């Protein structure tokens, strides 16, 4: 079941009713049962894997807590991480490694019919595995005590709003909330519903409309000129933002309706003036996870190399992020590019601060605009590798952008116009939230303005939303 499916429109109100009717002490159980029901609906057998990861994490976190000697704790930590990473590796990389061996053999002219492996990736596995690993490390670092109630651990790992695509939450934030669920709070329910509505708008109207155009170009690169390919490449970052950002808002809003606060996943990323700021505002939960559990230990290990230690740690962290997105060379290049951008920024940082202070640039509109534009261009150029079907396609995109031109492909004019219109609306809202915080439509004090704003969004979703649209992009990760 996904948020945009018809079933969810029955599932969610039913859950909310049962949840708030149930006595407060048993509400965690309601959430747990509904969460497993939600997940089982995708593919029943995958819930066994989810149960296995939960059980292993529960047992080993308790063992870490009850062991006094340091090496014992460390052993339990490592065993659990390996155990829960195994299924992720198996499902995500096994087929790819198999194909790589085949093509390696073929490249030295050893060719015979070898079977291909096609595994279906258990949806959400990357996300709940990361949450389970984070929890285990937090218990090991004594930042949190191991939860004694297996049901609460199971709920943390399977919590339905987050299980398919995050935000990748932390036990520190979630376990105390599950242990002390709140009474019905009208304000929270309303806020949650508002976020859900905006999430639906971002996904159904913006992401899926833009997606149709981007797909038309990227899946038929040979038939399109550089102008159209450039345009699709500019649109793609916005598609990912409204897809994963919309999904995240749906997740956060759903949890909020149930009285549970979940961390923000996007913070108007396209108004960042540097790449490092961008990565603090884009897919925040993944980056903060990687910072705490990968980058910090790595940069700590390499700290004697000074700035270069940071560069090495950054490169490795983003390569891991790339490989997490997919076991393809395109994602390795994607991760490498992020690492390079951030490293260059880190190396130039002091000089830039001096320069900015000398000419007092930080308040100048042209300087801020330049930073925003440059950051977008860098990110969009890396996203070409995130979107292209393979490395050859990615290089073809670059080659065509720089060597060919011609009229812009419009395709279906209504799809094209609605894509741009809905994207403008999204960006206009982000722009006012960022630069004119007093300009409120959705949170206006005037009830009439509020009602008109929300009604318009509902009408837009119904009129131009893509209801037969595809999956969320991040379901495949």
């Amino acid at each position, binding site marked *: 079941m996904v948020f945009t499916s018809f079933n969810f429109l029955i599932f969610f109100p039913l859950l909310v009713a049962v949840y708030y009717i149930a006595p407060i002490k048993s509400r965690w159980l309601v959430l747990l049962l509904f969460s497993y029901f939600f997940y089982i609906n995708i593919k029943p057998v995958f819930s066994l894997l989810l149960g296995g990861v939960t059980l292993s994490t529960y047992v080993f976190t308790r063992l870490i807590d009850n062991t006094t000697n340091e090496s014992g704790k460390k052993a339990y930590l490592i065993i659990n991480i390996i155990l829960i990473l195994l299924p992720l590796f198996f499902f995500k990389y096994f087929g790819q490694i198999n194909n790589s061996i085949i093509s390696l053999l073929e490249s030295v002219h050893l060719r015979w019919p070898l079977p291909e492996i096609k595994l279906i990736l258990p949806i959400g596995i990357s996300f709940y595995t990361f949450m389970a690993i984070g929890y285990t490390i937090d218990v090991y*670092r004594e*930042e949190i005590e191991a939860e004694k109630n297996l049901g609460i651990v199971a709920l943390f790992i399977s919590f339905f709003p987050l299980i398919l695509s995050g935000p990748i939450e932390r036990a520190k934030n979630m376990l105390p909330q599950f242990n002390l669920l709140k009474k019905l709070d009208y304000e929270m329910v309303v806020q949650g519903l508002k976020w859900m509505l905006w999430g639906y708008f971002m996904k159904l109207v913006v992401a899926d409309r833009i997606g149709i155009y981007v797909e038309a170009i990227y899946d038929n690169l040979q038939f399109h000129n550089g102008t159209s390919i450039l345009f699709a490449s500019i649109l793609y970052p916005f598609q990912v933002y409204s897809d994963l950002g919309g999904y995240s808002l749906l997740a956060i809003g759903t949890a909020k309706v149930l009285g549970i606060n979940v961390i923000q996943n996007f913070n108007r990323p396209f108004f960042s003036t540097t790449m490092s700021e961008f990565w603090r505002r884009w897919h925040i939960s993944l980056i903060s996870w990687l910072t705490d559990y990968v980058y910090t230990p790595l940069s*700590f290990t390499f700290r004697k190399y*000074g700035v270069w230690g*940071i560069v090495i740690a950054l490169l490795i962290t983003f390569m891991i992020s790339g490989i997490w997105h997919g076991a393809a060379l395109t994602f390795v290049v994607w991760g490498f590019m992020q690492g390079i951008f951030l490293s260059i920024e880190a190396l130039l940082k002091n000089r830039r601060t001096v320069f900015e202070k000398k000419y007092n640039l930080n308040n100048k509109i042209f300087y801020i605009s330049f930073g925003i534009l440059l950051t977008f261009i860098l990110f969009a150029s890396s996203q070409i590798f995130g979107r292209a079907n393979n490395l050859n396609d990615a290089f073809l995109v670059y080659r065509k952008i720089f060597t060919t031109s011609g009229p812009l492909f419009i395709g279906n004019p209504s799809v094209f116009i609605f894509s741009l219109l809905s994207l403008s609306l999204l960006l206009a809202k982000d722009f006012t939230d960022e630069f004119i915080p007093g300009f409120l439509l959705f949170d206006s004090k005037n009830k009439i303005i509020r009602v008109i704003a929300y009604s318009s969004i509902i009408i837009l979703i119904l009129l131009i939303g893509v209801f037969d649209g595809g999956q969320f992009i991040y379901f495949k990760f």
Partner: protein
Amino acid sequence: MERTELVTKLTAVFRKVFNNDSLVLTDELTANDVDNWDSLSHMLLITEIENTFSIKFKLKDLNKMRKVGDMIDIIMSKF
């Protein structure tokens, strides 16, 4: 080392790493209050503190540093 002496030395380290001569340290100061104090410059700061005070941190120490006050307590505990 006295706490006040430590804070004076630590202030000099902060001012050097963050290129800001007017930076004043308080116990409640966090990374959010200081320009350019992010996860990248944090490790440079850590290395500079280790060299200045001739101490070695553990990874676990780093996770406990939520504000400057925690940092000072951890450095004090190393003498």
